[in-house]
């Protein structure tokens, strides 16, 4: 109906300008007395039917087949791409898993080695400390023995020294009995026996 304004506009123009003879003659489209008016419709119907059959049986299926083949090939390509992507994803996941496994294995190996080394070090330290303790005890025993020996020699040394000093000072040799007594008193005063 968009063209109706144009049609309406053309009517007054045509009405003003058309000779009355042409108006009286009327539109050829409305001359239904003319056998050609109906004949063209009959022919038109036949032509339309033939065109319909030619298009629907022969021409359009060709186009449809090409379009379908294209759609199918696109779908195939898409499927292939999806499959490739899935494979790549799977490989990626596998690799990630393998990396994770290797890492945890390595971690376990490291911690086992560390534990073992710690245990060995602890054992070694224990053994060393035992050995040192044994040597310490031995040394202490030796010291005690040496001390006892020294202590045992102290009275003799003091007696000899006293005897020598008194002899030098007095010029006389004191009796052994008195020196022993004096040394015993002096030692007792110093807490020694």
């Amino acid at each position: 109906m968009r063209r109706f304004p144009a049609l309406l506009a053309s009517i007054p123009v045509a009405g003003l300008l058309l000779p009355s003879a042409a108006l009286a003659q009327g539109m050829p489209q409305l001359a239904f007395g003319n056998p050609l008016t109906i004949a063209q419709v009959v022919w038109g119907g036949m032509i339309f039917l033939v065109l319909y059959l030619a298009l629907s049986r022969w021409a359009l299926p060709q186009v449809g087949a090409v379009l379908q083949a294209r759609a199918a090939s696109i779908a195939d390509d898409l499927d292939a791409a999806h499959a490739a992507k899935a494979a790549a994803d799977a490989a990626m996941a596998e690799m990630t898993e393998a990396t994770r496994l290797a890492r945890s294995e390595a971690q376990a190996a490291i911690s086992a080695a560390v534990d073992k080394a710690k245990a060995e070090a602890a054992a070694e330290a224990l053994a060393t400390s035992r050995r040192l303790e044994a040597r310490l005890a031995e040394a202490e025993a030796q010291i005690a023995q040496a001390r006892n020996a020294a202590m045992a020699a102290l009275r003799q040394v003091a007696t000899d020294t006293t005897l020598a000093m008194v002899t030098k000072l007095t010029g006389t040799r004191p009796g052994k009995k008195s020196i022993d007594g004096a040394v015993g008193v002096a030692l007792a005063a110093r807490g020694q026996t």
Partner: protein
Amino acid sequence: MAGGEAKIDALGQFKLATVLGPLGGSVNFTQANLFMVLGGLLVLALIHYGMKPRAVVPGRLQALAEMAYGFIDDMCHEQIGHEGRRFFPFVFTLFFFVLMGNLLGLLPYGFTYTSHIAVTFALAVMVIVIVTGVAIFTHGTTFFTEYFFPKGTPVALAPLVIPIEVISYLSRPVSLSIRLFANMVAGHVMFEVFATFVVMMAGAGLLGTIGAIGPMALNVALMGFELLVAFLQAYVFAILTCIYLHDAVHLH
């Protein structure tokens, strides 16, 4: 109509005449039918030569053929639904039959068979008969009761609703055919009137010749407009057919 004897005969271009000599004359084969055959052959040739390469990536002509196919295919799918596949060849034929009539009529010496009310009315009646046939085939006789008196309508409104629905249904072929016919006639009458102006003014001396540029330019602009109308009216005819088919298949 050359020379000073030019007079406006805007309707003479629609006059029918037999072609192909005495053979055409004996079977009343008119120039309208010749152009129908020509249009049909053009469409078939477009598809045949266009689709010959059967290329996955189409060339120009193949792209045109595929575009024509896709255009009507989409129209059927969008308007009718998935049942539209069945009607696709019919709508395709109808669209290109009308389009070729409109386009070939714009060529010099062309004849616009869609400017004949007898032809457009026959097409419209064919559409309505097919639509009604599809409706009865799909829904049986319940189509009449359901279509002309939809469910849920108050019974009191029946005297009003039924005549309105019947009249609107019967007016479809009338509006469908007159729309196409009037558009084509109007365009071609205007072409003829302006073209005659050019001839008449050119015959009236130098000033007239200069003045003739006006209607000439108008006709050039009109040609572009008519090309649009040719496509638009073919599209309208086809899409209305699709809408009617949708109604027939789905009942409103």
